[in-house]
């Protein structure tokens, strides 16, 4: 995973609570065997007027002109701003992959669903829970004009030219993101311990290590 230290990007205001993982990525895309390439299907039901699945070429689908993300002014957004309970519903990690692949790096909301929140860190997406007043403020600012913010993980702050807010995040998660460590990399820091454990096990229970074929 790429280390996450600071990110500057445009805010995409999505003024809705309970945005569930089905809305983020509908279930027909779970048929894909890919771990990457879900960006075109992000918010699929909202972004397109016609339905689709993994086999439908995106170029042939009609975009919904009323959906803000389809506007040239917002298409390059990378900081998602939403309301309460973001990422609720099914546990599909594909929802995080879709946000990541589209180009989102940060999600700002008053609260997140548990599994979604965890899944974000496995994939280098930064979810930030902020007080309702801050979220209100950000919505107000982003609705009057294009809003760019800088998210600094080192100092745990979000700022614009005129404003600054602090955010909280679990320390071990912060460190892992700063160093670009996904869960696997974190575990692999203990590779020596695992090897030592394995060596002892090989002596005690050699049958565990038999070649299968």
């Amino acid at each position, binding site marked *: 995973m790429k280390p996450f230290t600071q990110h500057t990007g445009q805010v995409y205001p999505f003024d809705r609570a309970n945005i569930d993982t089905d809305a983020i990525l509908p279930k027909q895309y779970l048929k894909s065997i890919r*771990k990457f390439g879900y960006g075109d299907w992000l918010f699929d039901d909202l972004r397109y007027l016609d339905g689709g699945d993994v086999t439908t070429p995106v170029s042939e689908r009609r975009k919904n002109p009323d959906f803000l993300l389809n506007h040239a002014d917002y298409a390059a957004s990378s900081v998602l701003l939403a309301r309460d309970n973001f990422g609720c519903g099914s546990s599909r990690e594909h929802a995080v992959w879709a946000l990541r692949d589209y180009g989102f790096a940060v999600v700002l909301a008053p609260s997140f669903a548990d599994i979604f929140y965890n*899944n974000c860190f496995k994939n280098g997406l930064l979810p930030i829970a902020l007080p309702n007043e801050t979220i209100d403020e950000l919505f107000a600012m982003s609705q009057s004009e294009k809003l760019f913010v800088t998210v600094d993980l080192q100092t745990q702050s979000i700022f614009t030219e005129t404003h600054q807010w602090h955010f909280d995040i679990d320390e071990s998660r912060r460190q892992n993101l700063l160093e670009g460590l996904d869960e696997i990399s974190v575990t692999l820091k203990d590779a020596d311990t695992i090897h030592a454990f394995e060596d002892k096990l090989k002596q005690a229970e050699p049958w565990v290590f038999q070649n299968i074929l």
Partner: protein
Amino acid sequence: MTSPRTLYDKLWDRRCVKQNEDGTSLIYIDRHIVHEVSSAQAFEGLKAAGRKPWRTSAIIATPDHNVPTTEREKGIDGITDDTSRIQVKTLDDNCNAFEVPQFALKDKRQGIVHVIAPEQGLTLPGMTVVCGDSHTATHGAFAALGVGIGTSEVEHVLATQCLIQRKAKNLRIDVSGQLGRGVTAKDVVLYIISQIGTAAGTGCTIEFTGDAIYSLSMEGRMTLCNMAIEAGARAGLVAYDATTEAYVKDRPLAPKGADWDKAVAMWRKLKSDDGAKFDIDYFFKAEDIRPQVSWGTSPEMVVAVDATVPTVASLPENKSADYQKAMQYMGLEPGQPITSIQLDRVFVGSCTNSRIEDIRAVAEVVKGKHIAPTIKQALVVPGSGLVKQQAEDEGLDKVITAAGFEWRSPGCSMCLAMNADRLYEGEHCASTSNRNFESRQGSGGRTHLVSPAMAAAAAINGHFVDISKEAAL
């Protein structure tokens, strides 16, 4: 002196590499079973990060979830459904690229993940076993810790040979006494879930104890542990004993010679110590268990075959709405006798009941008889190529096909209907699988969970009958 420990405590301690500050632990994984549906993204993630599997001797891959159960000699190219073919092909490619051992589609040892591993001795007592599939609990029958995992965790185990886990609570379910005629492990587990509910095991590992449990064969114990997941648990366990030992001995990957003696000495300690503390306890009597049938859309909506669909008045208040909705979906009237439900299809198979003992039970019931004319299709899908072969060696396939059943090639089949085997709108099915959720076996399908003998008798009669009262047993 350490304080008395449960079997789960012991299995956990044996493989705990490290305790993390946040309360999680790093658990070493002995065996990783991989199938086509939950592994593609894990391998892609591995590739993207430039990683390799930590230890390929830990892994066995096999396609099972969406393989066809007919025309298998055609191999992968014979799979007509595009998504299914791509998934099976991707697994094959990944196994080749990462040098992962595979029982491929045409291999005799191919079959349902939870059937093939015990059969080969890939699951051994005391092991930690994971698979990207919730029914990994099955392997607990061997006093092994079997845990189902998600795709990210599949990647994590591939890359590190470890799983990050928080220890679960200890729950004991004791069944004392002797099981009656025609009452099988499937009836025991369906009965238990009907009594404790599908959420009772949440956050727990269940250990099944008691003489009724210890009298079960390994096949029966696998059926039991398999459905621990339907009781909400993370894993199910049965202690090691002579039955376990006899089953494991001489399996292709079981230890041999001096290693066997060493292993057995170690395995014999795989049971809960006297006085070990369980967080939760349930006690049941074998005598209370009759052949069971699920009438609804949750594995807790189960009654004895000679009972009726619940009456509205008898429903627990907090569940009344769900239960009535289930009756509606199933097209059943409150108070209707279970034996009056007319069946359209019968499915014998799935990781719950597709082992040789299950096929034998079916053959015994249907021998010399024929399925009712109202039954559109009755399928028997053995759990593995080796189960299929053994059944054929015993002549069971002949008995079964003579009775009007179709004899298929191994796979998950109609358990989840990812291949061509499925129910159609409104059809009732007597099924030996584990989930009766809405549309699980095909859109609009109506599943009734039962034991293999009950399914067989239902096929002959066109409706459920009380197997304990049937002459042929």
